[in-house]
């Protein structure tokens, strides 16, 4: 296992948007209509820089072997690279020990791992899990399944009309019976940044653990698990593919004693200490939770992605996105017929803007924008309770990342003006 002290330091680079864009060759391509790509669907998945692509190639070309079970050179190298990636991720989120980093496939698997390995073991009928109305389906459905299986109680912190959470209600919804609060740090549908302090303080006061869905926060702002929500949290789940890394690699971070108290999620190779025909004993954390051959190449590429983001600095990433979002909020508000959902200021929202255009279905908006090269997402964004609360079937959503520019926001805005003219929006 690579220790944090063994990691090479990452050199900080200035935030040079032209240089950053050169690292993403896909941003130069054209879409089917011949227009230059304007990629504004980053909340769904980010693009990958050449550094990450090169790391994938380098691993398979020079070091490829299965890990943990070989004495030969390649296997030793692959194991070292895999464990080094684990340490890089640990440092990136302020984890005390690389053993607290579990490689999964995505946020969804990370949350399910907690539901199976921790909640199934420790929760009794009548115990409460508290989530919120603005969660992604991946932080709703596992708890509904557990409720139906185990008779736990599932409670929701409600959303207010402006897309923020009702924190007064949260104080009474989290009770002495609450064992886990599982909450997003940022809504993928509305961009709301959740003030975790209030929720974590209340959870701590009643002795509940806190799981944070960091799928939309870890890629976009500084996150330190020791100070998250001021008091620190117990679990953090996030996905590599939203932060410059390949598909198919995700993270669950958990506090070591909590992870040690958990049952494995899947059984098989690599997660055992001994196996006899009668019984098996479990390997130590994190191997206990990484049954079978892991996604070695993509874990290593996630290490490269984390290096890339660390060189930019997550405070600089957040600053850039706040500027773009602030500009976009003002620019879109000027487009006739546009209504923006959620909080009106970029201070309390991440780089996600959900909106509607009077009288035009989101699907049509997305289609017309595509002919301008502008890629946005339309639909329910896997957050149907939010759509229900807004009383809309779907929204159009633009979401930003490190490489987006104000020119691209202008392309979105003028594209929307054209959509409005095309479908005859009045106002």
């Amino acid at each position, binding site marked *: 296992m690579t220790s944090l002290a063994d990691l090479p330091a990452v050199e900080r680079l200035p935030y040079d948007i032209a240089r950053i864009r050169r690292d993403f060759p896909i941003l130069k391509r054209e879409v089917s209509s011949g227009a230059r790509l304007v990629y504004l669907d980053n909340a769904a998945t980010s693009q990958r820089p050449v550094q990450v692509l090169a790391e994938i190639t380098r691993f398979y070309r020079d070091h490829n072997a299965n890990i943990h079970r070989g004495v030969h050179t390649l296997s030793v190298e692959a194991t070292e690279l895999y464990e080094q990636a684990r340490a890089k991720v640990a440092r990136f989120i302020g984890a005390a020990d690389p053993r607290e980093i579990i490689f999964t496939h995505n946020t969804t698997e990370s949350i399910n791992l907690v539901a199976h390995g921790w909640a199934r073991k420790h929760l009794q009928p009548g115990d409460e899990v508290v989530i919120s109305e603005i969660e992604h389906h991946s932080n709703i459905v596992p708890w509904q399944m557990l409720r139906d299986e185990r008779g736990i109680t599932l409670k929701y912190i409600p959303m207010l009309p402006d897309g923020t959470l009702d924190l007064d209600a949260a104080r009474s919804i989290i009770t002495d019976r609450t064992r886990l609060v599982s909450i997003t740090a940022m809504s993928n549908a509305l961009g709301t940044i959740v003030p975790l302090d209030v929720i974590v303080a209340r959870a701590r006061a009643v002795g509940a653990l806190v799981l944070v869905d960091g799928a939309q926060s870890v890629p976009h702002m500084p996150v330190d698990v020791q100070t998250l929500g001021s008091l620190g949290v117990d679990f953090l789940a996030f996905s590599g593919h939203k932060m410059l890394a390949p598909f198919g690699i995700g993270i669950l971070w958990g506090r070591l004693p909590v992870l040690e108290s958990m049952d494995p999620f899947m059984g098989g190779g690599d997660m055992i200490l001994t196996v006899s025909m009668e019984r098996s004993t479990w390997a130590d954390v994190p191997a206990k939770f990484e049954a079978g051959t892991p996604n070695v190449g993509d874990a290593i590429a996630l290490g490269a992605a984390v290096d890339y983001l660390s060189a930019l600095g997550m405070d600089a990433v957040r600053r850039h996105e706040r500027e773009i979002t602030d500009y976009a909020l003002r620019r879109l508000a000027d487009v006739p017929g546009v209504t923006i959902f959620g909080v009106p200021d970029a201070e309390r929202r991440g780089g996600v803007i959900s909106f509607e255009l009077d009288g035009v*279905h989101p699907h049509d908006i997305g289609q017309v924008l595509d002919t301008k090269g502008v890629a946005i997402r339309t639909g329910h964004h896997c957050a149907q309770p939010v759509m229900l609360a807004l009383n809309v079937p779907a929204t159009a959503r633009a979401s930003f990342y490190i490489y987006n520019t104000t020119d691209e926001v202008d392309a979105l805005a003028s594209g929307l003006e054209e959509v409005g003219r*095309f479908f005859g929006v009045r106002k």
Partner: protein
Amino acid sequence: MAESGLMEDLYREIILDHYRQPRNHGTAIEPTCSADGANPLCGDQVRVDVALVDGVVEAISFSGQGCSISQASASMMTEYVKGRDTAAALQGDEAFQQMMLTGEAPDIDGFDDIAALAGVAKFPARVKCASLAWKTLAQALADGGGSVTTDDGSR
């Protein structure tokens, strides 16, 4: 949007016309059979009410919400079906599904406006929108009601 041929393939003027002024939309009829269709992925919803007299569609009405393609297709479908018998209506459904596969407009009577939707075949993501009203109609005629959905899960 003259600069983009792709756009014109999809949003033909006659389609926008049906979208802005849908025919047989929300008309009060006394239905003998009905069905609800949904495309939860994009939020398209359509309800089709049919009044059959001796196997002939005497009156038809649709309601619901959705994108221009789903709403225009529903409007066109009702115009085609009205006054035709069940067999002809189902034949229309079959011809329509075929058109979504091939992108070729079929040579059948009454398909003039509908043929404008042939271009949708080039947009796989929109085929479900265009087909919804026809699927819902077939459901209504099949066993006098029920509901259909075209969802297949998503991000």
